[in-house]
């Protein structure tokens, strides 16, 4: 069972899809398997992340296990 990346808002366009399965592992390793442009967009300063539905404050040290979901959340625009 793989881990899953979820792309919200304009990151969906950058990824070309709303989500993607990836091999589990440390976040840096996972990002290294993506297109470089996409990896850069995902690491944008205003992009937040949620690991298994929980917002994370620190980007360092994230490791994706099997079945994990990591969502990339660009600035919102609701209402």
């Amino acid at each position, binding site marked *: 069972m793989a881990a899953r990346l979820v792309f919200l808002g304009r990151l969906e366009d950058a990824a070309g899809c709303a989500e993607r399965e990836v091999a589990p592992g440390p976040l840096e390793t996972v990002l290294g398997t993506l297109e470089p442009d996409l990896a850069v967009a995902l690491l944008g300063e205003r992009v937040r992340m949620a690991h298994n*539905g929980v917002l994370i404050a620190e980007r360092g040290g994230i490791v994706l296990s099997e079945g994990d979901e990591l969502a990339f959340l660009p600035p*919102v625009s*609701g209402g």
Partner: protein
Amino acid sequence: MASDVRLLDARFEPEHELAEFYAAHSGSGGIASFLGQVRGQGTELLELRHYAPLTLPGMRDLAQLCQSRWQLDGMLILHRTGQMAPGEPIVLVAAAAPHRRQAFAAVDYAMDHLKSESWFWKRERRAGKWQWIEPRPDDYTAVQRWA
């Protein structure tokens, strides 16, 4: 306080929702509300995406925050997701309170926070092309009034 917070994936009738809210709060001195609708002006379709693990919980937290900040008898927060045509309702917020200023402030606050701090992403189709909408600088200005 009773609060009614819903994320809706199909069209809703704001007048019916508000009628129910009025009926539930006939003892309140004042009920303020705001309805946001899809504007035309070149927009063919509007789409709102959300992230299920965060969006509805965030809206519930927002209702809770309003409740702790003002003296309210009840609060309603409805927000659409999915695709909407011009004229369709997007968001309906209402607050019932003993005093007018409390009801006003709660609705104003909730709208400012839904706009700039809730987990929604909006895109629109114009001339057949979809484009993501970036938050507007004055959405941030609006929300900073409450800091």
